[in-house]
Each structure stands twice: as structure tokens, then as C-alpha cells.
């Protein structure tokens, strides 16, 4: 751990960001740019959810920044009436890190896609997570490259037939939640584009978390991967598949809680609630990294089960707070005397 224990983790994710008492509306967060996603794209729903959610934080709008990479989803910042940068492919977490380090008074959000974050940008993502930079990372996972017109992505199922894989793709996909947990993430959540309430709830927890918060959002791309998440949207199927997490609560799901999550070895399995004893039902504990990992594995690629909500939330010093603390400490310890720096220890003088 860092040498300086400032008790910083106790701060909220938004500490230091100026607030306003002026009432805000979703509309205030809409920019004047025409939204240019395809009709029916899941990105619209997420955009609306974010625009509706932000006013509840009561922040000064000018202190919010959205940084994105490249991809359909990465056009997000243009539509937000906040500050924003639509950067280059995969690099948004790196750019946002510099910004977050330089500016404790900003709420910095990263918007990225499954290709942007997990393909070209995979390294920046995992390093940002381990450093625990105070960024909220929204990963729009449509399991396809949208902007480049439909190649398979690192989250596409193996065997996927796309423009670039007419005989089927060969790669075993990433499970973004597992990957993030393996990369020491302090906060990982998941939501589904169509579930405004669930999404908003995860966004709120992410915003409140001090440190990197990765939120995977299942997002439909009606053009190149239509219906990828349909089974999670048809009511009866959804009930059998979606496992929403509430910290401290037993993990049950289904229309009337008829399914429960119980242990199996070091992992988990789903059982009819009626067939297990109440004490066997796993109680969610977002501070337990092992449970989080097991829940991530329960969420299989084929969506037989999809865990949503906050998998993990842990307190750890953030990189940016610590970096600023080091600077402040140094300033307190030693005056910034440029002349004496330039002179150093060994000088000599030439006189006329």
C-alpha cells in the first residue's frame, strides 16, 4: 500500500466536484448535436438513462467530462452538454487518467465499446482498474464492432459468423467482469440497456464509488448483431436468466424469487429456491472478491444466466488521490524555490 494513508477511500466518488443547488433536468444534459445512431440502437436508451440520471447528482454540469474512444458508442460525448473528448481508438482510459490526476474537481466518465475497451484498449483498461483511478467506465457491450460494420469482437461468442469470419470466429471470448476482477478492479457492475432502473442503480453506485468503476452494459446493435440480448428482454426468459444482485441480500431471482444461487464447490449454481434451505442461499457480499469472481463465471456467454448489479465494490486508495497527496506533501515539505533548484549543490562563480 502507499506510504501515505490519508483515509481517502472513505471519500465518496464525487468528493471535490462542485455541486449546484439549481435544479437540473435531463434536457440540460442534451447537447445541440443531432444524435446519429441507427434507429433502434441500444445506445439511445443508455444515453437517455445517463441524461436522466445525472441531474440527480446535483453536480455543476461544467465539472463533468465524458471521454470516449472510437466506435459507435464512443460518439456519446457529442450528445452530452458537458465537457467531452472523442479521442482515439482504445485510449480513452489513458487520457482520462491524465485528466483525473490533474483535476480532482471533475467527475470523469469514460464511454467505450467492447472493441474499444477490450480489444485495442485492453491494456489501458486493466491498468486503469489496478491503479484504481477515479473514473466511471461505461463499457457498451454489443458483442460486435458496430462502427466498422460488423466484425466479431472480443466478447462475441466463438464460432460467430461475421464479415471477417465467414467460417466462424475462433477466439474464446472474454468475460469482461472476470477480466476486470483478475485485474484488481475495485468496482465492477453490469446492466442491460433496456433496464433503465437497473442501469440507473448501477450508475449511481458507480458514481458514489471512489476509484475505477467498470460498468458493463449489454447493448443491442440492431444492425450488426440484432437480438444478441433478446433472451434477457423477453419477460419469461428474462426471469429465468437475470440474476440481480443486492448487497447483503440473499441471491434469488425469478418472477417470485423461485430460483436461488447456491454454492457448488468453489463456484455457484442455480437451484429452485424450494429445493434448497434458506441458509444455503448465497448472500451477496460485494466486498468478497471470490464471490464476485464466482458470480462472473455464473454469467455465461450464452446468457443462460446473467448476473446484473454490482459484483464487487471495495475500498482502496485511488491513484489520483495518492498522486495529488504526494505533490501536496512535497509542497508542504519543501518550498518551490526555482533558483535554488537550478543552482543545486555545486556551483562556482566567474567574476569579471
Amino acid at each position, binding site marked *: 500500500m502507499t506510504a501515505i494513508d490519508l483515509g481517502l477511500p472513505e471519500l465518496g466518488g464525487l468528493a471535490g466536484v*462542485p455541486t449546484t443547488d439549481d435544479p437540473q433536468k435531463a434536457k440540460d444534459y442534451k*447537447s445541440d*448535436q443531432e444524435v446519429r445512431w441507427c434507429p433502434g440502437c441500444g445506445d439511445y436508451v443508455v444515453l437517455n438513462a445517463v441524461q436522466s440520471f445525472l441531474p440527480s447528482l446535483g453536480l*455543476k*454540469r*461544467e*465539472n*463533468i*467530462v465524458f*471521454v470516449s474512444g*472510437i466506435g459507435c458508442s464512443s460518439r456519446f*460525448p*457529442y450528445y*452530452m*452538454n*458537458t*465537457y*467531452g*473528448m*472523442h*479521442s*482515439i481508438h482504445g*485510449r480513452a482510459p*489513458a*487520457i482520462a*487518467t*491524465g*485528466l*483525473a*490526476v*490533474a*483535476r480532482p*474537481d*471533475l467527475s470523469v466518465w469514460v464511454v467505450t465499446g467492447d472493441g474499444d475497451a477490450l480489444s485495442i484498449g485492453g*491494456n*489501458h483498461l486493466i*491498468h486503469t482498474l489496478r491503479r484504481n483511478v477515479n473514473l466511471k467506465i461505461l463499457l457498451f457491450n454489443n458483442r460486435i464492432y458496430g462502427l466498422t460494420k460488423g466484425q466479431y469482437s472480443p466478447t462475441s461468442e466463438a464460432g460467430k459468423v461475421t464479415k471477417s469470419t465467414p467460417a466462424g470466429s475462433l477466439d474464446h471470448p472474454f468475460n469482461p467482469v472476470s477480466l476486470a476482477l483478475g485485474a484488481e478492479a475495485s468496482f465492477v457492475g453490469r446492466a442491460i440497456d433496456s433496464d433503465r432502473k437497473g442501469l440507473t442503480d448501477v450508475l449511481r453506485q458507480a458514481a458514489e464509488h471512489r476509484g475505477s468503476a467498470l460498468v458493463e452494459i449489454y447493448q443491442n446493435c440492431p444492425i450488426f448483431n440484432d437480438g444478441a440480448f433478446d433472451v434477457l428482454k423477453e419477460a419469461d426468459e428474462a426471469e429465468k436468466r437475470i440474476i440481480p444482485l443486492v448487497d447483503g441480500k440473499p441471491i434469488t431471482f425469478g418472477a417470485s424469487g423461485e430460483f436461488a444461487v447456491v454454492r457448488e464447490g468453489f463456484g455457484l449454481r442455480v437451484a429452485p429456491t424450494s429445493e434448497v434451505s434458506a441458509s444455503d442461499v448465497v448472500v451477496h457480499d460485494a466486498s468478497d472478491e471470490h464471490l464476485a469472481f464466482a458470480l462472473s463465471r455464473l454469467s455465461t456467454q450464452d446468457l443462460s444466466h446473467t448476473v446484473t448489479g454490482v459484483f464487487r465494490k471495495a475500498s482502496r486508495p485511488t491513484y489520483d488521490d495518492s*498522486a*495529488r497527496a*504526494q*505533490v501536496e*506533501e*512535497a*509542497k508542504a*515539505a*519543501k518550498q*518551490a524555490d*526555482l*533558483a535554488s*533548484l*537550478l*543552482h*543545486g549543490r*555545486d*556551483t*562556482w*562563480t*566567474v*567574476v*569579471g
Partner: protein
Amino acid sequence: MSTDVGSGTEVRKLDRVVIRFAGDSGDGMQLTGDRFTSEAAAFGNDLATQPNFPAEIRAPQGTLPGVSSFQLHFADYDILTPGDRPDVLVAMNPAALKANIGDLPQGGILIVNTDEFSKRNLTKVGYAGNPLEDDSLAAFQVHRVAMATLTIGALEATGLGKKDAERAKNMFALGLLSWMYHRPVEGTERFLREKFARKPEIAEANVLAFRAGWNYGETTESFAVTYEVAPAKLAVGTYRQITGNTALAYGIVAAGQRSGLPVVLGTYPITPASDVLHELSKHKNFDVTTLQAEDEIAGIGAALGASYGGALGVTSTSGPGVALKSETIGLAVMTELPLVVIDVQRGGPSTGLPTKTEQADLLQAMFGRNGESPVPIVAPQSPSDCFAAALDAVRIALTYRTPVLLLSDGAIANGSEPWLIPDVEDLPDLSVTFATEPNATDGSGEFWPYLRDQETLARPWAVPGTPGLQHRIGGLEKAEDTGNISYDPVNHDRMVRLRQAKVEGVEVPDVEVDDPSGRARVLVVGWGSSYGPIGAAARRVRKDGLQVAHVHLRHLNPFPRNLGDVLSRYERVIVPEMNLGQLALLLRARYLVDAISHTKVQGLPFKAEELQNVLTDVVKGLPA
């Protein structure tokens, strides 16, 4: 020219001397050289130094690749280079002898530590016989000194183990050389006591060894001559020694202070640039944050993010790192944010010669990005000049809202020279004004992030947190003024030309021509670290009664306004470069001048002598 002193030793006065200390990487040659340098500096000589490390961290002991050396040049006048060849070579072992003897001119002084010349050590480096015993060194003034034995002897009383005692033999060598060159010694003794403050017995041992070396010169009669090099007449002021990388780091710190901006260095270690990071990381009290990122791309990304946030974003690397950063430099060109990209050039291509110098990234800096992506380029000409060059790069970046490439190189980075420390008050004012108000010219009350300053063509710098100026930028082409995404053909053409015009319009001072007689017909044009050798060569040519003019470019993009004019005034233009002719290519293309390249790509600085010959040939070859 020579006088006798008490000990019966003759004292000869010299105007300049080049000494090279060479030994195994474990022998402490860098420290020895540094100390001699400090002594010379304290004495008032002008000087320049050049260390030479092995590529390996710790190459096997006693081998050729393991040789480490330090050359210093000190004089009673202002000198420009660390010297072509040593007048004195100190060789601590057979490997050091073998690796360096080729550079010692006939009649040069060779001081050898005989203790290491065992059969085994000799064979290790491929000596069939012992060169100290045959006549292969006949051309030199050889002094055979059992330095290890003498050092151990001198330290017997200290109770230090033999091995530890032997370690101080570099101080013995330093003492001996200090005696030979009449150097002040107090500084070194004080230094040793400070350095080993926590291990007083080691401090004492080193001081004893140092004195033993001195006394060895004074008392034995092997050395018939000692030498004096009088202090140089340098500009009045306070001086210090400084390496290029340190000066660069200080320049960045100073720029932060003078601009009032926090500095954020986003970087990834790479030889020979890492010391910029190391140095900057020590100065957090100047509001400097250093971020060692996961790679070069993340490093520059963080720097750009910080710039976007209103800090002074800086990134530092060497050639292979610039290659990786090129896409993000392009983003900085498009977003028109200030950013300083430091490239401490090394031998290429690819991994190349990581510990050697080269100037072969100029065209990469100019053109190494997709599309029309112009960036200003600034190059320091000597170690201490890195300070001013860094300030200048920051000035351009902040004034014009553009990434700036700062091209240093391995020779400058590790070389050192005295630096006339500037007064802080005299440093340029780099303060910037952030945008605070809407600026639309159509009465809409909007903020237009790409409305340009008429004079500089810079766009406003509106940092997040500024109420009312919310806007979005990015890598897609932008509409003039409003900065909205634009696919309009004519707008794109206009923006491409505006970005180009902005960089071409960067204010840079005219070049000054060094042509003392005003009668030269040959002009030599250089840039970067070749300043020293070119300047020294020009002096020598002139000493021979010939005329040559010298122009040295700090600004490679844009070129100074008067450069074309200057070039046109000479019959021959010759461009020496440590590459295959990169500046020459730019000059030829721009000015259609038949610039002749003289190129050397050996990972080593030019020698003044070599350039002297080249220039002399050109001058003499002129038609009458």
C-alpha cells in the same frame, strides 16, 4: 613554456587537456570522471564531458563489453566538445586498454593499473601476450602503476578487508591525476565525506586512497612533468555542471513555474530518456506530477488528458517510443492542445543501439503521422542548452496550442558541461489565459472552441470546469470556428491548411550566422548536438586561415524566416548529420539549395578533426 617546481617535476602550461578514465563497469569510472570534472569546474576551467556506458546492466567483469569510460575536456578557453581523442588515457584493466588504446594519439600519456594484467584477464579480452611487457605501447608515454596494490597498502591501517580496500583504487587514480594537473582537492575530500556520511570508514578509505594517489605522484619520480591548465575567461556569473537530461527536466520545472501551470509528465521508461522522468519525479514540490504509465501510448495519453484539463502535459521517450506515440500526437494536432513530446534520440532503426547517440528521428518528428499533421520541432545544441530549449518548446506549445517535438539525443542527454545559471526573473513569462467567456462572432452567445486568434491562429483553451463553455473535441475533422464534426470537403481543405499555417507561423528567431570574417563562401549548417564538433571544426578551419560560416538550427519546423536568404548567400552549403541526411533533405526540398550531406551514423558524436578535414576540403575545393 615550462617551469620547474620544488619536487623537481617540470610544470608545463597547456590550454586544454582531454582525459579519459576507462575501466570495468564496476570500477567506478563515472564517479571518478565526475569528480575530476567538479575539480576542473571549481578551478574555473571550461569543460565538456562524455560518459560511455556498456549496453548491458552489468556485463561480465573484465570483458570488452563491460568497459565503462568517462572522457572530459577542460581548457583555459571556452570549448565546445568533450574532445575527439584523449591526451591522457587511464586504463584500469586489459579490457579498458584494448577498447580505448586505439583512440590515444601517438605520444599520448597512458596510465595503467598493472594489477589487473593477469594472464587470465589478458586472455579474456584476446591479448596473446601482455602489452605492458612487449613493445606494442612504444608509441605512448606509458606509466605502469600497481594501483590496486598501492591502494590496499595505503589502507592497511584502516582494518578494511582487502576487497573493500581495493575498491577505492579509482580514488587513487583520481588523486594521481589531480596531482598531475594541479587540481584543487578539498572539494573531492568533502564530497567523499558527504557521499559516504553513513559509512564513515568507507569515506575515510576513499579519502586515504585519493591522498595516496596524489602522494604517489608527488613522491615517486616516475612522473617528470605535471601540467597546468589555467582558468578560462568565461562570461561572468554563477556556473554549475549539468547534463542534458537534467537541464531538460529543469527546463520543464521552470516552464511550469513560469506558466503558473501544474506539470504532468506521462511517460514510460526508455534509454536514454528515463533520467528525465527520474529527475522530474524528485520535484513534486514544484507542482510536478510524474506518471509512469503502462506504455508510451498511455504516457502521452495521460499527458494529453492533463493538457485538456489545463495542465502542462509533457511526455518523454526515445525513438521507438515516438513511433508508438504517433497516433496520439496526431490527436493532439487535431484537438490543438499544448503538449511537449521529448525525444531523446538513440541509434536506430528498431531497438538499434539503445545506449548510443544518433539524430535520425528528425523526419519521423516531421512526418511520422497519418495525414497532414504538422508539429513544431525544437532541438537543443548542447547539454546545458536543453534548459532553454525546453522553455522554448513550452512557449510554442502554450502559445500555439500544439504538440511540440523536442529532439535531444544520447550525446546531449548524458554529456555535461558548465552552465551559466540564469536568473529566475530573466526567464520568459509563459503565463497563459484560459477562455472564460462565450466568443461566437454571430451573436449566438455560443462558445466556439475553434475560433482562432488572428495573430497566432491558436484556438481558445477552455478547460473543463469553466461554466458555460461546455464543448466536445476529438479526432474527427472539425468545422472551422464551431469545432463541430464536419465532413464538408471545403472545410477539411481549409482546416488542413489552417493547421499548417499555424505551425508555419510559429514565431522563431532568425538564425545567426557565425562568420567572423564575413568573407566565408562555404556555409556549414547543423542542428542539435553536433553544435560542439561543428563549431570546434569551424574554429580550427579558421585558425588555418580559411573561412567558413556556421549556422546552427534550434528550430527545425518552422525554419527561421531568414534561413533561405542566408543559404542563398553561400556558394556551398554543407550539412553534417548523424543520420543519412535528414536536415539536408528538408533544406533541399524547401530552398532548392544543393546542400551537401556529410553523414556519419556510428552512434558517436562527430569529431572536430573529422569535420575540420571535411570543411577544409570543401573550402579548398572552391573555384578561385
